């Protein structure tokens, strides 16, 4: 599906996208944002799942199993802490009610 130059195009465009999207983020959101981008690379979960699906030897299975545990931790943990932080950001319009 994707190979050679097509992959490089995707790589280049995605790199610019990441840079542009982040460049407009105010400092006050840097910690949630780092956490949020940390969550986004939790997509490694799908790769770890595929690797474990196709595992054939016991060694491959063991590594794949650990990989999926770690990836799931990345995705779930990244989501939970980001959501917890962003939930607290409120404007002063409706304070203390």
């Amino acid at each position, binding site marked *: *599906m994707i190979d050679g130059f097509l992959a490089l195009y*995707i*790589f280049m465009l*995605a790199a*610019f996208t*990441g*840079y542009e999207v*982040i460049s*407009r*983020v*105010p*400092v*006050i*959101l*840097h*910690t949630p*944002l*780092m956490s*949020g*981008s*940390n*969550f*986004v*690379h*939790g*997509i*490694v979960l799908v*790769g*770890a799942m*595929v690797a*474990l*699906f*196709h*595992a*054939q030897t016991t060694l491959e299975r063991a*590594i*794949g199993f*650990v990989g*999926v*545990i*770690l*990836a*799931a*931790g*990345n995705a*779930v*943990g*990244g*989501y*939970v*802490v980001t*959501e917890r*932080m*962003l939930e*607290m*950001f*409120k404007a*002063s*319009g409706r304070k*203390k009610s």
Partner: protein
Amino acid sequence: MSSLSPDVAANLINAAYLLVAFLFIFGLKRMSAPSTARGGILWAGVGMLIATAVTFLAPSDHSLASSTLSTNMVLVILAIAIGGAAAWYSGRKVAMTDMPQMIALYNGMGGGAAAAIAAVELYSGHNTSLVAGTLAVLGGLIGAVSFSGSGIAFGKLQGLIRKSFRFSGQQIINLAIVTSAIILGGLIATGAHSEPMIVTLFFLSALVLGITMTLPIGGADMPVVISLYNALTGLAVAFEGFVLNNAAMIIAGTVVGSAGTLLTQLMAKAMNRSLANVLFAGFGESSVAVAGTTTGSQKPIEASDAGVMMAFAQKVIVVPGYGLAVAQAQHKVWELAQLLSDHGVIVKFAIHPVAGRMPGHMNVLLAEAGVPYDLISDLEEINAEFETCDVALIIGANDVVNPVARTDKSSPIYGMPILNADKSKNVIVIKRGQGQGFSGIENALFYLDNTRMLYGDAQAAVNQLILSVKSVG
């Protein structure tokens, strides 16, 4: 689940991954403004759910024995349950002050997962092309370094590792480890030697490299390191995405890689450190012996006087630092701020980019206390306002308000952007004692004529201020 024909399944997966890539970028975009940020993480979360669900269709486009496949399927579900539950629990429990090390931990897990994917590919020995092999090796190397390095960063911030291990010749040893990892990786990628033994040695050297690279770095520089490992994990995920032909991983990983690199640069700049400096030189220990060239004395003030001074001020700017969070005084400070606004005082919060343990961390801690984000200003917005401000209240902050950063070229923090609290008419500093700050640098602000020191624990001192303001009526 595997009853779909392979073509249909493949198309479905690809279509879903396209949607997922969109949701991730859209989510990150929405996270770039406080008012939409909450929605942003929700959108990205939906994307992750779709990606995970649709990946269960993936086995149908490969020919595996059905018994092997169903075993693997069970293992996948089990592993997701274990990793997900543990992370859910820890993420819910962690205190906001401990957020940086938690992010480091989750990030390291992602790096470890990328390395695991590489390991499965490389041990299986069926990587066919040089390109795929090279990318698998690179992703594995970066992922493993990020894994062990983030673990060390977690240990340091959590207080499990207190020392900065540094000895002469450390750089040479690191260089030797890098070289051996690259040589081993090269042997594997070219297919010259892809024996399990070589692969094991390769991953071991990558893991050791992450440890030896991170151990010498001081705690103050950890945010930059965590951010760097975040970007590296993104890159590792993208590389493994190429190996697995997975567009969602390539796009998400690359976006995080570049965004994380930018974020790392911003943080290093805010701390007045170059990235090379952070990685290859120590901070703190190396700069302790700075002579205190300040003159004059620190002038104390009673909480009752300080409270009255603020109650009759027109504008008060609060400068919170990490000491505030350590004393858990955020809620009290917000109470004080509300009390002052009831007296007609304009109260603003000024946050230095590196206040707290990482950029934006202090904002999170204030948000937790209920401080609305529109009362919080960052350095560029607020610095001009100090001149028109009657009282600058410094709580638990030190280096970020030290005017020697503007004036003293010999100071290690010279050139670091600071909050110009010294320009306000009066400065009140709440401080535990007369000691020096985190970096061990004498703070000239404390000796200025318009500065008064309020000694004591931040929470207790703010409490006294509240009582004092209340007594004004």
